């Protein structure tokens, strides 16, 4: 690749003459030809595997399809089917509950772990690996492993509770504990990545800030509150946004571990979407649900980014 490809665009200033403008455009295109060539492959892949399916999904939301005859336009009927389904409201409630719990547990714990790891003077790399290890396990393996942990009979947790003479829990089999049990699994499985990102952010905080705070008599909590959190605020906000978007699409844990039960207490939006598409063979309603989720997450992301920018 020639170095000119990476050269910044040249700006001579002042309004160019039309002939100049064409010439400059031509030169710019030629300068960046190699880059466009590389970009082209990515664009084709995105168009084929991402943008076209999105557009197709939007169209499917207003159609009834059997993949044999031409799609039939049905207006808002798929959305009406969805709104009439009692599970629609339940799935939203469950998904928001999962997201809320995941924010409380899954957001706070990795940050706390990162702060503690950052303070370690010995064996830091070892603990970093230990925290990151679960991320390397496939999600399905994690879910199956935790199913055994949660087994109300010979499972790990109830065996431990029995050992200490504590009352046993039904974990996944109880509507009161099923969702939080799933959140714990999701947090355990994914906290390694978040912890590493927080650690990287903590490493960028200048040591002088802590020294100055200590000289001013700040205790640990005050240093955390007035130095650490403000200095990592941007990373925290970005991670929170990513976590909300990701947790609202929770699927693997309820699909493998509870199937949405007991009594619909873990039916999430993506699980409902999966059922419509692949169990009931109703791709129109499934697409309508995915469109609603897409709009809500899109609006939420845009709002949050705007807030972040304003505050910055």
């Amino acid at each position, binding site marked *: 690749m020639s170095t000119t490809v990476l050269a910044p665009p040249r700006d001579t200033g002042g309004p160019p003459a039309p002939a100049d403008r064409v010439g400059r455009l031509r030169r710019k295109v030629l300068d960046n030809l190699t880059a466009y060539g590389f970009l082209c492959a990515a664009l084709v892949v995105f168009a084929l595997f991402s943008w076209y*399916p999105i557009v197709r999904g939007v169209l499917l939301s207003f159609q009834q399809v059997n993949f044999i005859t031409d799609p039939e336009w049905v207006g808002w009927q798929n959305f009406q089917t969805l709104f009439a*389904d009692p599970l629609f409201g339940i799935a939203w409630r469950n998904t928001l509950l999962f997201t809320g719990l995941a924010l409380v547990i899954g957001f706070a714990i990795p940050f706390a772990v990162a702060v503690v790891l950052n303070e370690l003077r010995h064996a830091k790399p070892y603990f970093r690996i230990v925290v990151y290890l679960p991320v390397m396990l496939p999600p399905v393996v994690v879910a199956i492993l935790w199913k055994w942990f949660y087994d109300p009979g010979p499972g790990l947790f109830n065996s431990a509770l029995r050992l200490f003479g504590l009352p046993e829990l039904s974990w996944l*089999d109880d509507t009161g504990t099923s969702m939080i049990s799933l959140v714990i699994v999701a947090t355990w499985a994914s906290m390694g990545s978040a912890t590493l990102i927080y650690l990287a952010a903590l490493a960028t905080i200048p040591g002088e800030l802590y020294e100055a705070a200590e000289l001013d008599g700040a205790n640990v909590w005050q240093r955390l509150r007035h130095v650490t959190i403000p200095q990592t605020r941007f990373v925290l906000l970005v991670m929170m946004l990513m976590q909300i978007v*990701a947790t609202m699409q929770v*699927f693997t844990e309820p699909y493998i571990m509870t199937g*949405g039960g*007991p009594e619909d207490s873990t039916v999430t939006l*993506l699980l409902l979407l999966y059922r419509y598409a692949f169990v009931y*063979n109703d791709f129109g309603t499934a697409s309508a649900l995915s469109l609603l989720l897409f709009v809500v997450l899109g609006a939420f992301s845009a709002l949050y980014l705007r807030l972040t920018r304003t505050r910055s």
Partner: protein
Amino acid sequence: MSTGIQRRTLALALAAGLTVAACGSGDDGGGESAGGKITITVNGQPAKSQPFERKVFDADVAAFEKEHPEIDIEPREGFMDPTTFAAKLAGGQLEDVFYVYLTDPANLIARRQAADISDFVKDVPHYEEIQPELRDIFTDDQGKIYGLPTANYSMGLLYNRTLFTQAGLDPNTPPTTWDEVREAARKITALGNNTQGLAELSRNNQGGWHFTTWMYSVGGQVAKKDGDKWVADFNNDKGREVAETLHAMRWEDNSLGAKQLLEFEDAQKMFGAGKLGMFVGAPDNIPPLVNQFGGDYADVGLAPLPGGQGTLIGGEGYMLNPKATPDKIRAGLTWIQWKYLNPDRMESTLKSYAEQDQPIGLPTAPPNAAADVWTGELQEKQKALREKYANVPVENYQAFVDGLTELSKHIEPPNAQQVYAALDNVMQGVLTNKDADIDTLLADAESKVNQALAQVN
């Protein structure tokens, strides 16, 4: 969360898969090669991990092609997979002859995703001798036919004869009422050492499927025709009876185990390990119990479904691609009849299976050519041949065979999967909540089932 990225990737991959499929050839090809030979694709070929079954299938393809030189079979691995069905159909990749469970045809017919074979069925030998209730599953309201049943099962009660003996029960007189089941389950649970009397399923629609079976067993149903509309029919005394029995077994007797949200495989594992006394299931569970889960044919008993009123029937069949040409439909039907519904091959197939130590004598397929779909003389012939070549303890299943004739046989409700999803909740409620309000559970499920049935109406 990193799993979030994986989930999104999965969703994207699914969507992309559909799209690519939609952009695919969209063409089944003419299927007619030089010399007027018809080529058809068929699924149902067993996986390489089942070498015996695969060898039999491939040998059958070769034998069929020799007998029918005008037809070329392209076998494909696999059976019905709802997660890929639509993508295959959209992309023109669905086989000309494809396998279905008996829960599938109603929806496929309603969505026009199977070929109308009414004009061709008259040429299928012995079609009229297939059990009418099985033929009905592939027939719509106008009498049009869309497929052929090739095997069926009736639900019964599988029980562990060794545990029965250890618990002081007679393994030759299995329970015939739910009260007797309850009593037997109590005694088996009392053996201790994590032994469980009965297991019931409650997730991924299997709970609803079993609740439906229980309803049939006590003379109830889960859906009925009210005029020309389907409505739920389990929020009544029969439904309460079933739910209360299950609740009492779980919470009063503790004979249903602490771990719930089970699926079939969970029950099979416990049974194979000798830790489970009974579970509701069909005879086709017996070979996997022995071959995959470490059970023993001598330990497995099979009784008719307790309750004495009725049982649920299911099974499998084949349908044809809606894009298939008339020539392909004719060739496809010829294959299905030759391979799966062929009385002339009954004895030779049974004999070859027996010679290779495959289980013969179970009240079910395999082998497919001797599947339990017939009526009249063919049914008698099949029974006699099965007895002749039996190599499993048939006396262990005699109660099931004898009792089955007394039970009325019911097919699954319309829109079965959605109905079962709603009924899963009733099972989960009574099995996971000691303070379950059964009336509320039934009423909530009724409203959901009515909504599911409204789509059929």
